[in-house]
């Protein structure tokens, strides 16, 4: 099981904020493929510059492995202040 969270614009594009994927995909790229399989808009939004992913609240570099029960967050370009 993997809990997936979307933030900012990604949530609006996908039309959901949180989803559980069961069984857990083995990698971040497999998870992306799974949540984008019927949603090309989300695929485009995830491929945009500045999009980052965190696994269990640690920023992922490249294609990370996903431990069972982890939380994955996809985050668009950041803009605070």
């Amino acid at each position: 099981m993997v809990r997936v969270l979307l933030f900012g614009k990604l949530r609006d594009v996908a039309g959901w904020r949180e989803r559980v994927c069961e069984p857990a995909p083995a990698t971040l790229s497999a998870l992306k493929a799974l949540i984008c399989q019927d949603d090309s808009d989300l695929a485009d939004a995830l491929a945009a510059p500045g999009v980052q992913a965190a696994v269990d609240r640690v920023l992922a570099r490249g294609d990370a492995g996903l431990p069972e029960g982890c939380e994955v967050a996809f985050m668009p370009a950041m803009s605070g202040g």
Partner: protein
Amino acid sequence: MIRLTDQPFDPGAALNAFCSGRTEAGAVASFLGIARRGDGGGLELEAYPGFTQSEIEAFLRTARDRFTLQDAAVIHRIGRIAPGEAIVLVLTASAHRREAFEACDCIMDYLKSRAPLWKREHGPGGARWVEPTARDLDDAARWDQATENPA
């Protein structure tokens, strides 16, 4: 110290509290960001609870080392923010002014384009997510160059 709050805060009270009891700091610099009226009904800021605080806290630790600060603090609003309300307050304390000014600038540049916060503007045509501008990205990159090529 990083505090995220969904309630309006008093920047003057926060500055006084930050300065209270400091006998070694010759300089405290502050930056206050305020929501502009712009076209519409204000702003909305989203955070990733837990992650946003720990990322900003980690950045403040590196800023404390880099600028030899005695302390640094950020208060950042999340949720809906009305025009005229404070969005963000950055406070830095150091022995001398230059380090406090530069650290305040650096921390603010980080918050604009690299901290896990997402900003949405509410206008007459609906809501629109704000992306960092080219200027915001350049501003943040100034500090990378300074690290890689010390003068």
